[in-house]
């Protein structure tokens, strides 16, 4: 599923980033699953989407591809304890992207 180019004119609002993240997750876990599961800010990566460690790596790659070096997903994840990763929501990732981008 192609992502909208970040270079298009639309401003990188929080809603736009949430949409991007939805698209990225669809790419990671498969479009079919995402189509049937509501993804909002409160959705949990682990409990709701059942995203596992390796899929996190793939997620990081997509984020970097899309947003460039401004997002250092591995470094960010490396600061977290396992419990924190398990409790991570989509909203938290979106916030991280918002604060990381200029």
């Amino acid at each position: 599923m192609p992502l909208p180019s970040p270079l298009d004119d639309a401003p990188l609002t929080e809603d736009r980033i949430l949409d991007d993240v939805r698209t990225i997750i669809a790419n990671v876990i498969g479009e079919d699953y995402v189509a049937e599961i509501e993804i909002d800010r409160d959705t949990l990566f682990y409990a709701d989407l059942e995203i596992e460690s390796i899929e996190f790596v793939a997620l990081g790659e997509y984020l970097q591809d899309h947003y460039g070096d401004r997002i250092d997903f591995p470094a960010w994840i490396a600061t977290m304890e396992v419990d924190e990763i398990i409790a991570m929501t989509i909203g938290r990732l979106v916030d991280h992207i918002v604060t990381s981008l200029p």
Partner: protein
Amino acid sequence: MNQTDLIAVIGMGCVYPGAPDVETFWDNIVAGHDAIIDAPPDRIDPRFFAGRDGEADHLTSSRGGFVQGDALTFEPGRFGIMPVTVEGAEPDQMMALKTAAAAVDDAGGLDDVPHERIGVVLGRGGYLTPALARLDQRVRTSNQLLDTLRCLLPEVEDDRLVAVKEAFAGQLGDFRPESAIGLVPNLAASRIANRFDFGGAAYTVDAACASSLIAVDAAISDLRSERCDVVLAGGVHHCHDVTLWSVFSQLGALSTSGEIRPFSRHADGILVSEGTGMLVLERLADAVRRDHRVYATLCGSGVASDGRHSSLMSPRVDGQVLALERAYRVAGVDPATIGLIEGHGTATPAGDSAELETLRCVYGKHDPVDGPRRVLGSVKSNIGHAMPAAGAAGLIKSVLAVHHGVLPPTLHGGDPHPALADTRFRLIDQAEPWSYPPGPRRSGVNAFGFGGINAHVIVEQHGTASTPARGSRVPSATQVLPNRADDHSFRFEAILLRGRDASDLTTQLAAIAPHRQTDRAGLPTGSGPARLAIVDPNPKRLELAARVLAKGQPWRGRNDIWFEPSGLVTGGGRMAFLFPGIEPTFEADLTDVAGWFGIELAPPPDGATGIELQGRKIFEAGRLLHQALTALGIAPDDMAGHSLGEWTGAFTAELIPADKADDFLDGLRPGSLEVPGVVFAALGCGSSVAGEIIDGLDGVVVSHDNCPHQSVICGPEQSMAEAGLRLAARKVLAQELPFRSGFHTPFFEPYLDIVRHHWERMPLQAARIPLWSATTCERYPTDADAVRQLAADHLVKPVRFRELVERLYADGVRVFVQLGVGSLVAFADDTLKDRSQLSISAASSTRSGLEQLARVAAAVWVEGADVHLERLLDPVVGATMAANKVEPGYGPTVQLALGTPLVQLPGSVSLGLAAGALPAPVDPVADWGSTTSPALRAELDALLADTLDATKSITAALATSAPPTRSVGGRSAGLGSRRMDASTHTTAATEPAAGVSEEVLSIDIEAFPWLIDHCFYRQPAGWDDLSDRFPVLPMTTMVELLGQAASRLAPELAVTRIENVRAMRWLAGAPPTRAVLTARRVSTDQVDAAIDGYVRATVHLAPSPPPTPEPSARPLNNPLPSPVGPGNLYADHWMFHGPSFQGVRSIAALGDDGVDGTIESLPTPGAWLDNAGQLYGWWLMATAESDFLALPQSIDRIEFFGPQPPPGAMVATTVRIVEVQPRTVRADLELIWNGSLCVRITGWVDRRFDSDPPLWLMLRESEHHLLASPTPKGYVAVEERWSDSASRELMARRYLDSSERAVYEALNPREQRLWLLGRIAAKDAVRHVLWSEGHGPLFPIEVPLIDDGEYAVVVKGGPADGRRVSVAKAQWIGIAAVGTATIHIECIENGDRSAAWSRLDKQVGMAAPNSTIDIDVLRSPVLTRSPDTVPTVGADTEAQPAAAPTEPADPKEYLVAITQPA
């Protein structure tokens, strides 16, 4: 009660049915465990359930709560008691002592409390407890017996009668005057004070069913008045005496439904139970000061009597209300703050109605403004009514409920009592978190006693936090509620649907969804390729499933939903098992899986720690899961491992023999291997990126290529630090791993010799299932040395897991199951992203083992695999599997004897009566006088004559003994014969002689309709000649007939043993057979019985069943799951039995030396023992390499310890093989019901019949298979594969119909052999041709043949009607070809059959007409043929040498002659 008056519960101990301790008790309650069972025969003699209602010695229910097994073990040494003292004492004293010790331990030992200030108050009823009942038997009954004997037998010397009395008393054990103290009732409390040196008041109280709470009330008083600092309070009741049961039976208070249903509309009475429960109580202030753990506090207690209004069966509401009000007044607590009421809940309609009315009066009606309804329950639904100990059970339950914040469920309350609606309460059938009302959790406990004594105790949460108290060893509520890993809490809840397509499934789902959200799993319904599974369905999942179906695309596992329109396995996809290697953590608890499937979980070796321990757990998990999955019918096509997981694969694929696995691991201790200075790191990138990153770093290598997003690198510490910097710069996630083994890198090279040496010592064999190597991405080699080389390479070369997954996928694998916890599922998913495949783990760190296994089963089933889903519905545990627990002890243990069996006189007792010494029985006719009609009088005269004869005959037969009941026995013998004569399917052949009965049995399908389900041979549907199906009486049914005949000769006695059973011939029911059954009473307690010419046995009888011994089967050696499940035993015709004989319900495990399983007690005569025999037969079928079929031949001894369990009862059955001979197998069997042995069979010999695999297949599925081998040349040949006439007989019946059998039976044995070979060859030749022409399944019997000259037959009837078949046969071979050719074999040499056969084959095909063949030993063979006359042997024509211009001697004849060597 103000804060300082609160009483703390600081310890608890209990023993109740199904629960030897508090932990289990609580677990059972939360899990909704029903501990009610049928009364074990050693506790209550089954005769008491057999009478008529209204009689004092008839008990109206046979069910109750019983403390059994380990809970009865007592260690006298631990309590400073002599074992002999235990024997003579009331067992409840020992139970109280044991429970008190557990409670004191639980309270931290109480060493910090002055022991002279500790008291004991126990509720205990004044019933006829077991030791007292035994004393009554000794003192009163023995004298009653003596008086009775004196009265009946005035002429017998008194010494002899006194000897009988003494023998009777002697059966009660030694009498020791010093043990009399153990009969004093209050010792239940005093022994505790004595043992622990407590100085407070120690006493028992009796307030009937309110006793425990009255004791607690007294304890509270003692504490508040500061007469004691700590008090042990509770109740004790271990008295399943028939007198107590009789009281309840006569009151009509026992539940006849056999289920105790408190507060249900269908409540129909109590079920009697037993138990002991104690709480250690202390003033809260002291408990806090002494830093004692506090479960909860008791904040109020109230007691009241009904006054003059009391009535036994109609409890009075006023008295109950008064008790409750007093408790709340003392507590100063608003009843509205109560969240849980533990009701008295006896499940008698009157009791429940009164209690509900009390609840309405005290707590008011439900008001929605006040939040949800509060919960009402009763632990009696789990354990029954433990009488004086019932209140303690309820109180312990309430304390734990308050402590854990869990509202526990109540059983059997589905349709509540109508009055419940008028109260503030509801019943729940699942545990719930305690969320209402706000404020401290409070629970009220009721106990109301007969005679109008009422008590209520209020329990309050200690502290405000909802977290469990410090030191609590019980898991917190959130862990307790869902999916505990403990045994028996697992419920397979799933919706499993099959349909034509997604829309079909949508329709089905819509139809069931509203009812099925919380239902237990049903087995799959519907048919068609599309499958849907929803595990643990809930509204959200149902809704999501509906959307998944609407979309119609496969859905694999997210939210526990699986959907496939067609299925990967259905589409031909293979399944691979993946074994994970050592992971940083191993957190899966698989004990529930082991328990469920009856698999023993080996403990880790002594001294194993850290990574090594982890490794052992991973190996063990792989092995266990493999067995469990196999039991579920989930079998892999391929196996592969990751790193050391390959070794687990090598064990499970049996590349390394299974019994060597431990040797292997013990010798190698893989976790102990360590290469100093070497570090592993897992990287969040593929191996090629990893390679770029480490490029140029000294010594760093890529050790694992796991998947596109993960690889592992390994190197020396300094270089790895540098790698870390590069990784951060590349923004690649990296994590150091906690191993330093250097595996899969050149660093391990120096250590390789150890491993190599180790592998050299291992015997290797070809893997049973293809095992793949991640080193080569190929299958393991089959050459042992090559395997050893690969095993060494494996440790120094990288793990190419990503490539292996690709390779497996290319090879057709579509389903990957990980046998353990780890990342292999994620690796496969990542590698095969966007491709159709299922990867799933069979274990999980977040779910219980069974919960995860259920998901695997559902997922794999959805892909189209045949899964034994039914095995997830009930545990498939062998009864003896869990036996070998050894705990540190205090010397010898004693089993507490809670039963009071009826006394059986030893066989040596004799009155020394000579023949004829017995008095004539009282003439009943004289008393009947004129009221008797002449006809009746004649009848009675005849009867009396019989009776006298019988009496004389028996007396004469008694060489040594004749107990006083003899005259009764004699009369009954006559009656028995008469009754028998009147039965529908028997006719008297002769007038029954005295003490002897003789009857003619007509064995036919009318008399024994269930024979239709015991036919050896399946024939085409609707086949009308029943004799072709061969319905025969099972040996066990014949044994039952013999037992019944013996019982009729001695109706006052019960059959206890049947010995020397010998079956001689089949007793077939078509054509009907008449057989004579004779039974002869040769002594008081022995009857010789026989169906003449078919079976005989010796039947032993006694007044009551012997004491039940413990099951003694040793654990199975090398237990493995059965390759075929119980359903398939019948469906796939491993067993020929039809529905009324299909009782094998589970096969827990097959070992080298036997099998464990469960059979259902079926009502068909003899079926239940036949089922045990089926399990036994299955062992041979599953383990033998040939001669699989075995049928019962003889049994040395069958001992009965009680009646056959009721129909539907599940009987655990163990079969232990004693001896396997070429012709016979011998085994010992035990049948265990409700934990107690009901039948023991010693020396059951099955006869084995000749059956190699093709012959066996032919017997089972004869409509699809040939016994003869087709040859490319168009003829078929069959070799004789049976060496004895019985085995030949089996095959003759398989092939021949009744008219052919008549011909066969008229021949002499040598002719029979040849004739049969010819017939088999001919029928198979026809079937082969028909099949090649597209005909469907065809039984041999559908090809009826008649002779057409010496060398041919013609089919007469059936689908091949009119075809001619050439046949030849000689010695051990039959040859046939459809067509006009004539085949003639003159002679076949003896000796090596295959050599002779290949020569014969060559000649048929290759020899030129009229040519002389001289091969090897052949001297004058001639083969003459004419190709154009044998069109159907077409292949021959082509094989024929072109030049053969000789004139045929006879154009229609093949002549093959092979002569023997000189």
